[in-house]
């Protein structure tokens, strides 16, 4: 399922899914689970495209979302802060797909939406401050190339 949207549009769709009734979610649970995964992929595609990269079509462990995360994290350690968020999204997708008739399906879908929303907020935030600096505490130093060139012992 290819989705071409902005982060705001994706967030709006996620909000819509959260607001949906259980009956609406359960009416097409496997499709909603697939949509969630596709929205996650779309979020990462936005990040990669903004950085001049072509989003990969490959998969990791059977999922393109994980391959896209790996692509985004290459040379960008702070991107790993959403590593488990992506894996949780896959996990919730799998739970729904494997047992759509489970009494927990609506709840699982809702939690999956919240996980996807965190991914959208994280990537959206990173994009927003891209001109200001790194987002994550465990990230590489700000403007690493300049930092390497100018690294001095300041004491």
């Amino acid at each position: 399922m290819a989705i071409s949207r902005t982060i705001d549009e994706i967030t709006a769709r996620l909000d819509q899914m959260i607001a949906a009734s259980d009956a609406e979610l359960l009416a097409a649970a496997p499709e909603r689970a697939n949509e969630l995964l596709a929205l996650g992929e779309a979020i990462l595609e936005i990040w990669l495209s903004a950085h001049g990269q072509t989003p990969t079509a490959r998969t990791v462990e059977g999922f393109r979302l994980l391959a896209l995360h790996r692509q985004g994290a290459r040379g960008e350690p702070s991107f790993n802060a959403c590593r488990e968020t992506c894996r949780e999204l896959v996990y919730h997708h799998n739970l729904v797909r494997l047992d759509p008739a489970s009494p927990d399906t609506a709840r699982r879908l809702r939690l999956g939406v919240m996980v996807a929303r965190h991914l959208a907020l994280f990537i959206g935030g990173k994009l927003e401050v891209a001109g200001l600096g790194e987002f994550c505490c465990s990230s590489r130093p700000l403007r690493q190339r300049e930092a390497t060139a100018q690294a001095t012992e300041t004491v």
Partner: protein
Amino acid sequence: MSGKYKNVAYYPGCALEGTGHAYNRSTKELGKALGLKLTELKNWNCCGAMEVKNIDPKLQTYLSARNLSIAEDMGFDTVMAPCNGCYHNLKKAEYDLKHDQASREVNRRLASKAGHTTYEAGKVETIHALDWIKDAIGEEGLKARVKNSLSGLKVANYYGCMYTRPRHIFPEKDQGPGTESTSKPHFMDDLLAAAGAENVDYPLKTACCGGAHTLSDSDTSTKLVLNLLTTAEACGADVIATECPTCHTGLEMHQVRAEKVFGRKTTVKILYFTQLLGMALGLSPRKVGVHENFSDSSDLLRAKGLG
């Protein structure tokens, strides 16, 4: 559980002397209640946090290495850092000194200029407060000491992003049964379950809290925190247990800000895991610094028989 961490050096770091004071207090009180000895590093300095690291990473390595050298000089082979940022930076310094000749060189030169022992990789092990309790006391040891069970308390365990990332600086993790997992950490879950708490399956336990974003883009931080809070509530949690002062402060402050700015009120409480364990061992909420938290959990604690 090997019990090798019963007597360790203690590196509180800057946050635990300021906004994370309740974490400092509860960690020390918890150690006392469990008969564990903590000896604070003498004349410790900043770990280099992100400010120094962003400008000159090798200087950050040196700053963290200086703390490790103090531990070594004081005769310790283990230093416990409860703050995720400090823990991460000391681990990173250890990794850099082991694998990077240039870092070793800068560390040697600066240590020599400053006139103290040059720290060499492998001399001191850095552990987190979770490793400390897990190894020195263990789940069975905790169970045996519980006076006020946390039973009936539903907890979402939130580890934040720095406790497990990047993987390569934590070689002891992901080593099979009994070790911590970088993809699905569980030490806090294990300890709180041993104290009687009911852990909920929280899908955002290592997700970003937006901590580093707080000043440059507060709205994004607030939205990230709001999502953490609403997800915890959707999981049925009464409390989010934390083990990082930056995450903890962010959750508390942005919980208030979310209500003020976005009109979104959440009621889940935020407590350090050391506070929860301390109360399970019979310490009063005041003793573990609950009154120093921004998030008022007194009603909940009273209702659960802990306050």
